[in-house]
């Protein structure tokens, strides 16, 4: 029954009121002429209400004439009439076109890129490959060829065993399989020496293979031979054998940094004046909404991104970017000697921390103060460290 109703609704029908003396005759003529009528209800002695299809209603005129009944429409129902209302509205048509255009456009671009299977450090690398080809959020799907993208990633990103690129809906899926780097093979039949990587005082010698040429407590210079790859037998008759020297040479090393003490310190001060710029972000493009050009010469900017999240944890590529800039003024501050020294020590330490290698541990630190030629005070910071200075070098025949 539901299907019949649905069919009638789609085809469209009219509710009509037939008034006259011989409604029975009208119904009979209609049924003989293959005009389908349904839901006929007698209203009173001279009228009845019924439903008829649009086609049936058009064919009804002769029947009404013959039976002497007057027919008028009470209500038009169904899809055709519903659509007819929109036929005249121009705005509706334009809206429909715009809507379908937006829909088509929005389903034909990439909205999100998902990279799976690889270590997080590689993602920027992959993204830069994509950016080089202008592939990103908002690029057209038709222009993208997954095979070519996969090839480019495999070529330009190192240590990738396999790349799968797939476009599913409006998402670009990139699946990466990392390849395992072959281990560094130590060839035992080749002679290698251990030499010093930098100057230092040897604290501990651990030799796994080779002949040590130094003892604990000796100072070594950079490049000095520490462990020889020539293994000498205790019995001189057997001669020597070439080995791949292996070992740890822990040594004390020193790093120093000296800086002149400056009595004037430039301090950055916020003036309290701030400027707010709001951008509308769509995909990877941004459009300025409010806030004009920055009126400040020097400023610090804090960027805040507000994303709109859709249902099911979907991240929509639409959002706002708020940039809060605050004005900064540089001010020269006169410092006392103690303060100036403290500041200098801090900067020197910072510089040193950047220089020292990662595997070394700071054992001791010394701070020296001396006066230069023109009366300037210098600060020298010395770090005493312990580190492994063993460096491999192929043994050359001597």
């Amino acid at each position, binding site marked *: 029954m539901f299907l019949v109703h649905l069919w009638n609704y789609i085809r469209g029908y009219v509710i009509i009121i037939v008034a006259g003396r011989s409604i*029975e005759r009208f*119904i*009979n003529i209609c049924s003989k002429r293959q005009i389908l009528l349904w839901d006929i209800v007698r209203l009173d002695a001279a009228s009845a209400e019924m439903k008829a299809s649009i086609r049936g209603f058009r064919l009804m005129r002769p029947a009404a004439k013959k039976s002497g009944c007057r027919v008028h429409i009470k209500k038009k129902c169904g899809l055709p009439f519903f659509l007819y209302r929109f036929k005249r509205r121009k705005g509706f048509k334009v809206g429909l076109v715009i809507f379908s255009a937006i829909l088509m456009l929005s389903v034909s671009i990439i909205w999100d890129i998902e990279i799976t299977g690889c270590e997080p450090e590689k993602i920027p690398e992959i993204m830069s490959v994509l950016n080089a080809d202008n592939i990103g959020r908002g690029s057209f799907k038709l222009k993208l060829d997954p095979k070519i993208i996969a090839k480019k990633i495999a070529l330009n990103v190192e240590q990738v065993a396999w790349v799968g690129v797939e476009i599913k809906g409006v998402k670009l899926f990139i699946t990466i399989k990392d390849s395992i780097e072959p281990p560094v093979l130590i060839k035992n039949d080749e002679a290698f020496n251990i030499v010093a990587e930098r100057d230092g005082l040897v604290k501990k010698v651990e030799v796994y293979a080779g002949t040590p040429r130094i003892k604990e407590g000796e100072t070594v210079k950079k490049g000095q031979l520490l462990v020889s790859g020539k293994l000498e037998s205790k019995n001189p008759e057997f001669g020597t054998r070439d080995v791949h020297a292996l070992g740890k040479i822990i040594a004390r090393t020193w790093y120093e940094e000296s800086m002149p003490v400056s009595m004037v310190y430039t301090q950055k001060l916020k003036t309290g004046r701030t400027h707010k710029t709001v951008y509308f972000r769509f995909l990877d493009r941004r459009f300025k909404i409010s806030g004009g050009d920055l009126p400040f010469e020097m400023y610090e900017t804090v960027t805040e991104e507000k994303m709109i999240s859709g249902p099911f944890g979907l991240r929509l590529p639409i959002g706002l970017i708020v940039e809060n800039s605050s004005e900064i003024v540089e001010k020269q501050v006169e410092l006392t000697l103690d303060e100036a020294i403290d500041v200098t020590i801090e900067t020197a330490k910072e510089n040193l921390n950047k220089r020292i290698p990662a595997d070394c541990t700071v054992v001791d630190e010394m701070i020296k103060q001396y006066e230069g030629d023109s009366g300037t005070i210098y600060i020298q910071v010395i770090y005493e460290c312990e580190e492994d200075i063993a460096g491999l070098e192929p043994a050359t025949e001597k």
Partner: protein
Amino acid sequence: MKRGIYRIKGAGNKGKEPGESLGERLARLFEIPGEVCGNRPKVTAIGRGEVLIENFKGIMDFQSNMIRINTNNGIIKVTGEGLNIREITNEEIIIGGKISNIDYDA
């Protein structure tokens, strides 16, 4: 000429049992349901709220408490309350409403 033949045939049939046409006799012979071959009406009452009449000729009277339908076997009168015609086509008519009687030749 043709008209004459029909009249003679009609006159001949009158004497026989009503509804025993050649087609119907054939239908009985071959055990075909009667409403298929002849044009005898088939009345189907579904529950109390729906009566389906096939092979009808036309409606004679349509009131909300009584509907009379002309068929080859005479007039069928359906009485009840709030009667309406659910659907009417060339071959069948569905009557809805609260039905109390289905009478023949009334």
